[in-house]
């Protein structure tokens, strides 16, 4: 009832861990893999990155605001950490980089992964993420380079802060196997006592409930324009949100900020989702894109 296929990747359920959340250590990935359809690691590049100083993650009324700055160990060190992954579900490794060569090299280092996600959307790292995603020609070259080095599925994670429909089309033409929409949305907060931006990096990315309607719209739009799978991400906190995203066209979803509420969020979502599907007499697959049909 819950099984889905993303290109040649078969998942027992459509609920994935989103990149950037609890994805730096095998310990947390192993725990989440018990229930998740797949886990996506924190983004890694060839070289390690310090990231930004604290505070780099804060919670606010309607979600989370972060500018961690792609803090990560060097690729080879992270590969060693991921060797301790228990394999309870497929492992998707997320990459950042600034040119096709870097991405292509990363694929080789993580050849044991089940799929790859390309971070074209992190909103707060200079020369990476969103800044790469803005250059559609470069995105095309990156995906081509990665695909030449692997037969495993390659997903592109896009931002709502640019023309994501056009970008998704470019990704599809480069033979990406799916679009993950969306990453965090640019935002910031200011402390009115000290009169300064709260994040050490001044601005960062908004996630959590606040961006759910925004992400849903992106999924809807991309689903209308490309035929490769869309993976929904952004503010999904419960099974109802998952259903909304499926109806909008998401073949799978990713859960991030909702881990703030509970470490068991994926398990809880699966319970509710199964009930909904049973009551409605449909499989998850049949829900996908249903709200587009009149």
């Amino acid at each position, binding site marked *: 009832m819950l099984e889905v296929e993303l290109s040649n990747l078969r998942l027992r359920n459509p609920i994935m861990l989103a990149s950037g959340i609890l994805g730096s250590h095998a310990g947390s990935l192993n725990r989440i893999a018990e229930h998740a359809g797949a886990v996506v690691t924190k983004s890694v590049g060839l070289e390690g990155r310090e990231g930004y100083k604290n505070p780099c993650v804060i919670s606010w009324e309607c979600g989370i605001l972060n500018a961690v700055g792609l803090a990560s160990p060097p690729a080879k060190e992270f590969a060693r950490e991921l060797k301790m992954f228990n394999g309870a579900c497929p492992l998707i490794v997320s990459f950042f980089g600034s040119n096709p060569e870097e991405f292509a090299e990363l694929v080789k280092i993580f050849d044991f992964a089940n799929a790859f996600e390309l971070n074209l959307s992190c909103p707060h790292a200079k020369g990476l993420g969103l800044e790469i995603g803005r250059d559609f020609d470069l995105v095309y070259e990156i995906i081509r380079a990665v695909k030449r080095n692997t037969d495993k599925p390659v997903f592109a994670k896009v931002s709502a802060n640019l023309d994501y429909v056009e970008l998704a089309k470019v990704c599809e033409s480069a033979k990406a196997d799916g679009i993950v929409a969306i990453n965090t949305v640019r935002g910031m907060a200011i402390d009115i006592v000290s009169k300064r931006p*709260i994040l050490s990096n001044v601005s960062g990315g908004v996630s959590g409930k606040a961006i759910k309607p925004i992400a849903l719209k992106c999924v809807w739009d991309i689903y209308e324009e490309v035929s490769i799978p869309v993976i929904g991400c952004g503010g999904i906190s419960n099974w109802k949100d998952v259903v909304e995203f499926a109806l909008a066209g998401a073949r799978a979803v990713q859960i991030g900020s909702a881990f703030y509420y509970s470490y068991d969020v994926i398990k809880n979502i699966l319970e509710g989702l199964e009930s909904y599907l049973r009551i409605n007499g449909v499989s998850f697959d049949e829900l996908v894109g249903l709200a587009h049909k009149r």
Partner: protein
Amino acid sequence: MVRHCDSIATLVFEKSIRSYPGQFVMLNVFDYEEIPLSLSSPNSVTVKAVGETTRALVNFKGGEIVGIRGPFGRPFSYSKRALIVAGGIGIAPLRYLYHWLRERNAEVTVFYGARSKEELVFLDEFEEVHVSTDDGSYGYRGNVIQLLIKENVDFNDFERVYCCGPPIMLKSLYELLNKKKILKRAEFSVERYMRCGIGLCGSCVLENGLRVCREGPVFRGDELTF
């Protein structure tokens, strides 16, 4: 601001924080960094200068504005007969715990080890306290685990053992309590590098996947491996 010695100080906040002993706050030292600090009372943290940010904090004059998020994390639990084992600046959350337990009519025995006499803080606040220093400048010369063994403490006299201190000390105590088969009755406050403090970034996860900032910082001994 209470300056205990050159490297240790207690910062007293203007307002108390609704909290339990063992919980921590993310304290933002403007122009430096935000760092996790265990509360040493509902309205204070006690800091040792080990890096740039903690050095800046220890040098505060009083009246400075800091940013505070929290309190976060799972606190210590109550027991009627308590043994507290503190190493170095690990005394901070245990001092909060001590007063919290005493106010609730618990019997509390404190074992407290530090590098030297100078770094022993809050000493006069404890009724029954056994002290060790590495340099022998006060109490037993040696570490606090050696002192526990030397004094031949019978752990069965205590309902619960509470512990906070440097990793090497936690490890020795863990092994000792493991041998005595009372890890279930022990609570360790664990330290890890933290970014978010709210269970998301994953910086502080233990090998078993538990998050120090959410499932911890206080863990039952049998939840841990060393």
